[in-house]
């Protein structure tokens, strides 16, 4: 049994959690300030059924005093990092990409609605302590190669079930040198190898992030024990990496930009908990500035939270996207989950900066999704076909 410091649900998993909470006979939430409902997958709602789900969640927040992050505020994992989570905490989220919290060195993992409903009520859950894979990355990432490429390379190497039930420890000089945004991308994708968590030890970069968000006093110095045992150690030379994509329909179906056919692309989507952060938006804007999206290609840009949306607006990035012919959409999961705001047509190809490309993910089993970095996505939007960001950066 373990105490849960923070528990959250989103609007796809929350309604079931609320129903199960009530079915189990609970009326009160344990420590409601540390329980959050996020309306982010259908933000704003495209259909009445989902609007009704939103109403259910708002009502539950009123009843129990748990926190609610309403439509437009941003994606759950991103707002959790901005406003709630600290190193050393244990958190559970009713969303598989809850592992994102590992970028702050909080043990954060994804669970189902009933498990999180129990955590909402009791402030506890049961867990088995996982074995760890150490992934040590050394060397300098080449130009136009980012943490997204690194992580896709790792998933392609280990496989979609290569780290099932394990905790990943992401370390090495390359990781040390990554910005917080770049680390978020890595922890976020950990679950795509089957892992339970993707942890990065806290350091000055972590401290600066906490300071920026008013939680510096929550910094904890955590390091693996000198005699820590790892089930597997994987060494990666970052200097050898090249822009990498995941191809339909599995995240571990990776190819490098040199190995792949530069097919025409109908939609480019830049956003999500994976790559909808300031660094991602800045890189994309720097490539798109003064250029135009190719005819026949749609560009969607979705900042991951309201605060990121406002910051991007201040920096003039949103104008760059709009002037280039892109659509800037409101903060949330957007096109990633296939609920609204960018569903693919039959046979269409999309290059997205998200973390998952399963068949049907973006709302159409006849769509084809490639995953890549924001730089690759921006380059692709300009060319109208899969493009090499090294030609643009």
């Amino acid at each position: 049994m373990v105490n849960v410091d923070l528990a959250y649900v989103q609007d796809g998993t929350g309604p079931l959690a609320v129903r199960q909470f009530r079915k189990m006979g609970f009326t009160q939430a344990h420590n409601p300030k540390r329980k959050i409902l996020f309306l982010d997958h259908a933000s704003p709602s495209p259909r009445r059924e989902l609007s009704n789900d939103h109403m259910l969640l708002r009502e539950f927040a009123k009843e129990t005093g748990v926190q609610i992050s309403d439509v437009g505020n941003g994606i759950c994992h991103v707002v959790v990092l901005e406003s709630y989570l600290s190193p050393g905490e244990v958190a559970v989220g009713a969303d598989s990409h809850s592992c994102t919290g590992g970028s702050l060195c909080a043990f954060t993992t994804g669970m189902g609605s009933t498990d999180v409903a129990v955590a909402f009520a009791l402030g506890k859950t049961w867990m088995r302590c996982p074995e760890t894979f150490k992934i040590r990355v050394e060397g300098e990432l080449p130009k136009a190669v980012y943490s997204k490429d690194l992580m896709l390379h790792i998933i392609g190497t280990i496989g979609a079930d290569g780290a099932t039930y394990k905790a990943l420890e992401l370390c090495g000089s390359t990781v040390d040198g990554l910005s917080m945004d770049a680390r978020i991308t890595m922890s976020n994708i950990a679950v795509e190898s089957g892992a339970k968590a993707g942890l990065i030890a806290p350091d000055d970069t972590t401290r600066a992030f906490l300071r920026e968000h008013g939680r510096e006093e929550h910094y904890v110095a955590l390091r693996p024990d000198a005699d820590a045992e790892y089930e597997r150690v994987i060494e990666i030379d970052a200097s050898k990496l090249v822009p990498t994509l995941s191809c339909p329909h599995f995240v571990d179906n990776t190819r490098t930009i040199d190995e792949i056919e530069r097919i025409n692309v109908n939609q480019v989507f830049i956003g999500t908990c994976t790559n909808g952060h300031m660094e991602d938006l800045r890189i994309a804007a720097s490539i798109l500035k003064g250029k135009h999206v190719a005819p026949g290609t749609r560009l969607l840009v979705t900042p991951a939270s309201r605060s990121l949306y406002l910051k991007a607006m201040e920096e003039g990035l949103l104008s760059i996207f709009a002037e280039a012919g892109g659509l800037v959409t409101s903060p949330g999961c957007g096109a990633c989950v296939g609920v609204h705001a960018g569903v693919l047509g039959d046979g269409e190809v999309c290059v997205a900066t998200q973390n998952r490309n399963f068949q049907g993910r973006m709302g159409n089993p006849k769509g084809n999704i490639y995953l890549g970095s924001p730089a690759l996505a921006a380059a692709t939007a300009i060319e109208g076909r899969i493009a090499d960001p090294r030609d643009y950066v």
Partner: protein
Amino acid sequence: MKLTGKAWIFGDGISTDHIAPGRLFHLRSNLPELAKHVLEDARAEFPEKVEKGDFVVGGKNFGQGSSREHAPTIIKLAGVNAVLAKSFARIFFRNAINVGLPVVIMDTDTIKEHDELEVDLSGGIVRNITQGTETSIPPLPDVMQKILADGGLASHVQKHGKLDLGS
């Protein structure tokens, strides 16, 4: 308890998008309706043809992807008695136990479409009646056995008033 039914064969890597498609997100609060589409993107005929008591048989990494508990829930609602696979994705496996859907880890390579199977969870054996073979299956961890025996996590908590899973 022995469960008998026929096997429906699915391949490796069946994802939660195969099981509960993203385009039907709005049906998550209408599970009986969502269950009418279970696994249809993997096998279009499955939701209509599956019969109560049948088994879903997968390969590696069954249930990969999302934490949506709706996935094992609708498999159960469709009448499936258990899911057998060579390996499962972590969140799906835990969710299946939580909703009272037995999950069995075993080598499924030799099972053929519509083989009649008998799954004996307490005895730890899966019998392929059609082929006349038997495979022993590993027991679930104690905590999971307790939850499954109580009919799932919500039922367990209703019964005990809390999490009563031992030390």
